[in-house]
Every structure is written in structure tokens, then in C-alpha cells.
């Protein structure tokens, strides 16, 4: 529906860093470091990410549901 080629292409700059870091680490693994950093639990991602990010799309969907 939406032409989002630019979105996909630009997001590659982000994906590629994950991949490159993973290829450059021996121990502990990138997953273990990510968990040890503890960012997701400490961030309160529901507050900073989930709610504010989901709300606009929810509002648009509600407009469609009201039709």
C-alpha cells in the first residue's frame, strides 16, 4: 500500500551494524552482552517506546473501526 523502499533501505544501516558487531565478538556473545547491559528492562520501554509508538497507529485504526 505504502511505498516504503526508502525505509527498508535506510534501516539497513542499522541492521548491518548488528551483524558486523556479532561477527567481531568472541566472548561473551553479543546476546550475553546485550542482556548484561540490561537496557530493555531498565528503560521502561513500555513508557518510552511501546505506548508512544503504538498510540498513533491505534488512533488511525480506531478511525477505520468507527466507519
Amino acid at each position, binding site marked *: *500500500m*505504502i511505498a516504503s523502499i526508502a525505509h527498508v533501505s535506510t534501516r539497513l*544501516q542499522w541492521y548491518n551494524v548488528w551483524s558486523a558487531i556479532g561477527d567481531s565478538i568472541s566472548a561473551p556473545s553479543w546476546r550475553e552482552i546485550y542482556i548484561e547491559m540490561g*537496557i530493555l*528492562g531498565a528503560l521502561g520501554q513500555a513508557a518510552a517506546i511501546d505506548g508512544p509508538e503504538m*498510540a498513533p497507529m491505534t*488512533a*488511525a485504526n480506531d478511525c477505520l473501526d468507527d466507519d
Partner: protein
Amino acid sequence: MTERKKLYSLTPEHRAQLEPWRDKWIANAMSTAAMTHEDRVACTEAVFGLYEAAKIPAPKAVVFVPSPFVLAFAGGFAAAAIKNGKPLPPMRQQQIENPLWNAIYRATHAATQPDQMSIEAGRENFKFSPVIRTISEARVFLAQKPAAYPDFVGSPETRDDDGIPAADQLTKWYYLGCDMRALANELDVGTFGLRCAASSWRMWQGGNQWSGYDAFLSFFQDIAKLDLPVYEQYKHWRVLAERSGPRVVHPDFCIISDRPEVLTVDERNRPHSERGPFCRWRDGSSLYAVHGVRVPGWLIEYPDKLDIKAISSESNTEVQRLMIERYGWNKYVHDIGGETVDHHKRWGTLLRTPSGLVLKVTNRSPEPDGTFREYMLPVADECEPLPDPNDPNGRLGQPQPLTALNAVASTFGMTGKEYESVLAWES
């Protein structure tokens, strides 16, 4: 023989940096600082860098907006208009008294018709900012006319304490104060535009909202100092994460949102505010939640409107629980005319009310603070086991004696005997 690349191992010194680095990015995610002129210049440059690194043509417009609501709707409407291949209706020359409407209206025009915006920007009775189309434009604006550098497209008006929306406008956990269907029609994108707005996550990149990921990626750049060529491409993404909110990325345009002016959490980092929205942007759009449960705005802004009718008509069990807690459990049972039919220490209290049987139960799993939450569950008139909610042909089971055990069992679609045998087998 090829030299084998030396792989990185986490050192004790670097491990000690994990927590402070994380906290720096948490502060970035929770930031309520408004974007500055310098932020917008840096972000404009980063957007062009992002497209260039991806080897795709630069966007025709970079537009700054006050909130993710404007972002999603203007992004969806603009994408719809471009897909339709039909120009938007001419811009009206007078603003209406609604900052969100104005912001979406203008941003949609700015994203799809930057040339028209530049022309219209000269008219005094319609003060909005021109659209940046090139990096050099952005640099010239900052170097020569700092005060004239494009402000937000829209009015970043802060609502004062007296400007709380009416209760009937606060029926959802988010507040817009703007009829989006009417706006979609005015922009001639209609339902298709609304569908595109609902799908704007396809074009979405989180900016500072995705700080959790950037904390990790940047740790290896700044602390571990991995020499990765890909960081040259990533640097644009990082600038946007550090200096702006979420953005919509489209082949023809990029729209960037500001950060909120209010963002509060409870002691467990859940969205929370008892005194107003837990999250509010500078165009007045807001979100409401209590300890992570999204609640209708009126419950926070107009607590005196909480009554039996509101509690009984609430279909979300978590929200209803919060409402009853605020109302008071004993008062609630009294006011609904509840009479105890059966009580059991383990299964709860079965009550008969004018609107039917309800079971007051206590969650057996404690909350992190050691308390146990109580809920009110509707039960069929004769404790018949409830049908599978996913089965459109489902029917109630056979009537049972009115006991708390049978009532609990019925909510799982079982008889009391079946439920007890399942529990015995599990234990």
C-alpha cells in the same frame, strides 16, 4: 595464508562501562527536551546522509512536526496522496483553532508539495515554516538567519492547566482532539489515507524511542572501539537517535517528530501518572496510563465522574479493576446492591447483583510489591460453564449449583468437578 581477524572480548574495564552507558541512553529515551534549531540542522543533514548511505535519491522534503500523532497521520496522508498521483486541494488561507489539525494539514502539504509551501510561506496571514530540501539550505538558514530556521510545521502550543479537554473527549487512553476522518476528507485522501496512517509503522524509525538498540550498537563504537567500516553509514542513524524523536521515511519525504514535553513512569518504569497524561507532546496530544494499564483520560482528569455505571460498562478487566480500586471495593459491592450467595476462602465470593452474578476473586500470583490484586468477573446466571470465546457457535454448559467453586470453574468453561480434578492432576 590469510591472517585471522582478532575478535573482541569484553574486558573488566568495558564491563564496568555497561551500566553508565545504558543509563546515558535511557536518559536519551526519556528526554523531554524540545528539539533545538541546531538539532533540526543536524537531523536534516543526517537524513540526507541516511538516504545517501542507502544509495537512494534524497527526499524532496524534510519536515519537522511536534508529535508522533502528526507524524503518523501526515506521513500516511502524504503517502496516500503521492500514491493517488493527485495533488492535494489548495491550502486554505486561514488556520483553524486546533494545533493538531493545523500541524497535520501543513505537514501533509509540506511533504507532498514543498514548492507550494515555499511560495505560501511569504504570506503573513499564514505563518508556517518553509521546508528544507537540501543540506545547503539547512546550513544557510542556521549560519545566516538562526531565528528564521524552520520551526515545526504546526503550532507547538502548550496546553495550560485550564485547557484540559472535556470529559467526553477523553474516552480513550490517547487524546487527539481532532477529527481525523474529517481531515482526511479535507485533504481528499479519505479512507485510503487513514489506512496508510494505520500502516505508517511500515515507514517508521524510532529515533530516540529506539535508544535501547542504539545503546548497544554505540557501546561497541565508543567504549569497545571496534573499527567497523559500517559505523560510517550508521553515524547518520545515530545522530537522529540522539537528536530527535521518531520519523517516517518515504522515498519522497522524511518527517521527523519532536520529543514529548511530559513522560513519566512509576518505580518499575511503567507508564504512569495519577495527575494528568503520562506522556504529552507540545501540540496537546496525550496518553494516559496508571501503573502500565492504559486508561481512558477522563478517569485521570475527571475522577469525580467515576460511578457504578462507568465501572459496569467497562469491558477491559484490568481497567475495571483500577476503577473499582479507586471507587472502593466495599462501596462498590454495596452500591451495586450485591448480596453474597457463597463465599470460599480459596475460590472467592459469589455475589448476586441487579445486573447478574459476579465473582470477586483474588489473583493467586502476588504482584512484585507483595500485594494480591482483586478482580470482578461476570458469571452466567446459573454458573453454566462459559463457551470458548473463539468459537462462534459456542454455547453455555449445563446449570450448576451457585457456589464460588462452580463460578470459578465456569469462567474456564468447566464444571466445578472438572476444575477440581484438573487442579488435582496438575498438583
